[in-house]
């Protein structure tokens, strides 16, 4: 911190700092109104009976219900499954995009981004058309004789996962692609000149240097998918029930604001836990930065 001796200059510096801080006020106001306030309200709701008296009954009811725990397991399965598939599909795709010529890369990127410009509802119903028993994919499979019976591709876990991966892949791809694009092409050349095969270069140079992007992408995927509602609701056919659809059912069927609030808080805690875990893991990786490059 520099010490400014001149009182007028010091006052100027203070005024400038205050001005820049004040620029964040509108955003702070909206976050307070749209995020903090509702959370406080939900926490209050979770301790109220339908009659408006304070109780811990909502927590007892929700936490002792097997449905809650199976919803929690389903939520984690969907999130981790989506994340795993995004990493497996997205990382090679990002690598291909980053090593393509700029013109080709831009074209491919446009294809990747196209789904983002379409409403999620439209896309989800689009998958329904493709995946149904009499949908395009099953028609092609049975028509060509590859399978005798149509495959159960939708109204189940598989269908939900397909829809979620489709939604998340571009969002995962962006930070990974950006990280890989930033890698100096000479690093790849240097590695090859010293005798590395392409696979060795990817393993020892490209992946370690894009770990930050893969990490950011993973956090985005996890935070998004943990609260996913439309895709499981439409493509799950009532058989896939993560916490989000349980909350909706608790509200629409039972008008039980107390229990729904408890489930909401559960979701919030889950996100916070995952967030903390990711941050801790990132710090761990950053701390190991000075390591050896043993292939």
């Amino acid at each position: 911190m520099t010490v400014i001796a001149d009182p007028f200059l010091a006052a100027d510096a203070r005024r400038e700092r205050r001005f820049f801080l004040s620029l964040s006020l509108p955003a702070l106001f909206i976050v307070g109104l749209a995020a903090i306030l509702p959370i406080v309200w939900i926490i209050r709701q979770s301790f109220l009976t339908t009659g408006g008296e304070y109780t811990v009954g909502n927590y007892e009811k929700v936490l002792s219900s097997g449905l809650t725990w199976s919803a929690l397991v389903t939520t984690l399965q969907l999130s981790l499954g989506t994340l795993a598939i995004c990493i497996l599909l997205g990382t090679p795709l990002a690598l291909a995009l980053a090593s393509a010529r700029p013109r080709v890369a831009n074209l491919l990127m446009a294809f990747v981004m196209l789904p983002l410009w379409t409403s999620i509802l439209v896309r989800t119903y689009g998958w329904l058309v493709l995946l149904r028993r009499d949908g395009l994919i099953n028609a092609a499979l049975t028509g060509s004789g590859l399978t005798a019976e149509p495959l159960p591709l939708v109204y189940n876990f598989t269908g939900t996962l397909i829809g979620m991966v489709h939604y998340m892949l571009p969002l995962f791809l962006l930070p990974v692609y950006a990280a890989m694009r930033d890698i100096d092409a000479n690093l790849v050349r240097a590695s090859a000149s010293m005798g590395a095969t392409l696979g060795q270069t990817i393993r020892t140079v490209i992946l370690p240097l894009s770990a930050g992007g893969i990490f950011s992408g993973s956090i985005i995927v996890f935070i998004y998918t943990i609260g996913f509602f439309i895709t499981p609701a439409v493509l799950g056919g009532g058989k896939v029930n993560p916490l989000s659809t349980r909350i909706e059912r608790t509200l629409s069927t039972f008008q039980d604001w107390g229990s729904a609030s408890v489930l909401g808080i559960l979701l919030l805690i889950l996100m916070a836990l995952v967030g903390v875990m990711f941050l801790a893991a990132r710090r761990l990786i950053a701390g190991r930065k000075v390591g050896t490059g043993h292939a």
Partner: protein
Amino acid sequence: MMKSLPITIDSVRKTYGSYVALDDVSLDIRAGEFLTLLGPSGSGKTTLLMALAGFVRPDSGRLSLDDRDITRLAPNKRDIGIVFQNYALFPHMSVLANVEYPLVLRKTPKAEARQRALDTLARVKLDGLAERNIAALSGGQRQRVALARAIVFEPRVMLMDEPLSALDKNLRETMQYEIRRLHDDLGITTIYVTHDQREALIMSDRVAVMNSGRIQQIDTPQRIYNHPSTRFVAEFMGEANIIAPGLVRRIDGADASSEALMIRAESFHLDAKLVGRDGVALEGTLRAKAFRGENWLLTLALDGGQEILVCIPAALATGCAELATGQRLTAYAPAAKVHAIPGARA
């Protein structure tokens, strides 16, 4: 001493669309030689280096190492050490891990790899920095790590792409001598790319001057400097005056040449006695003068209108401070420093 190999470049051509980066370049590099590719940016020198490294595929022509054709060999099979312009050190690895990297790829036993990396780091005077992070190194230290990494696996050929261009002047001069000494110790065939003519002269056994995808002249530093074969080489290698035939007269009165002449700025004297009877004289008006520390640079307008540069060493230039622009002046050059350039026009 490692076994070094000769390199043959045989009519290598590379075009990008209508742009000709390499125009049928042929070049023989002897085993153990330090050869510099010198030229302005866009002259094709880096393209030629990258073709040797395997990162640029020539449209036609042949590259061979010893008598083995490497034109289509993958870069990782060529066994060539490369020092890149921006060093290309792996930022996620320590200094030691960077230098061990090529050895680890070759499945060298761990202890041996470590020892060889440490020995090589000592050789480039980086002892004690092995565990450092790359980000914690200065430019000069990074340069040394890049050197160590390129020689640790005892490659048969070393390529260097303007390795000193990012360093400040003093460090650059130190590194020029160190790289040359390293080359002499290892005896490894080295191709060095630079746009700095002084660097090329100081470091090389031979210099190949390139322009627009062609090699203009390949020769020893002395011959390149004193006997340039084209106008481009003459002007690129220093302050050269190309003077049209007829403008230069011999001191004894005869017309000097029917061809264009090249006289370097520093070949001139202001005193006829220093030149000898067969020298040349050029008379003109002083247009500008500048003191450059070790010498004075005078701009002289000849009577035909052409301007020439005259460089007088400060030790001999006692009268230069008193010269006034507009004054008539005669510059003399000894015959040995007057070089005809066939076909060149002033």
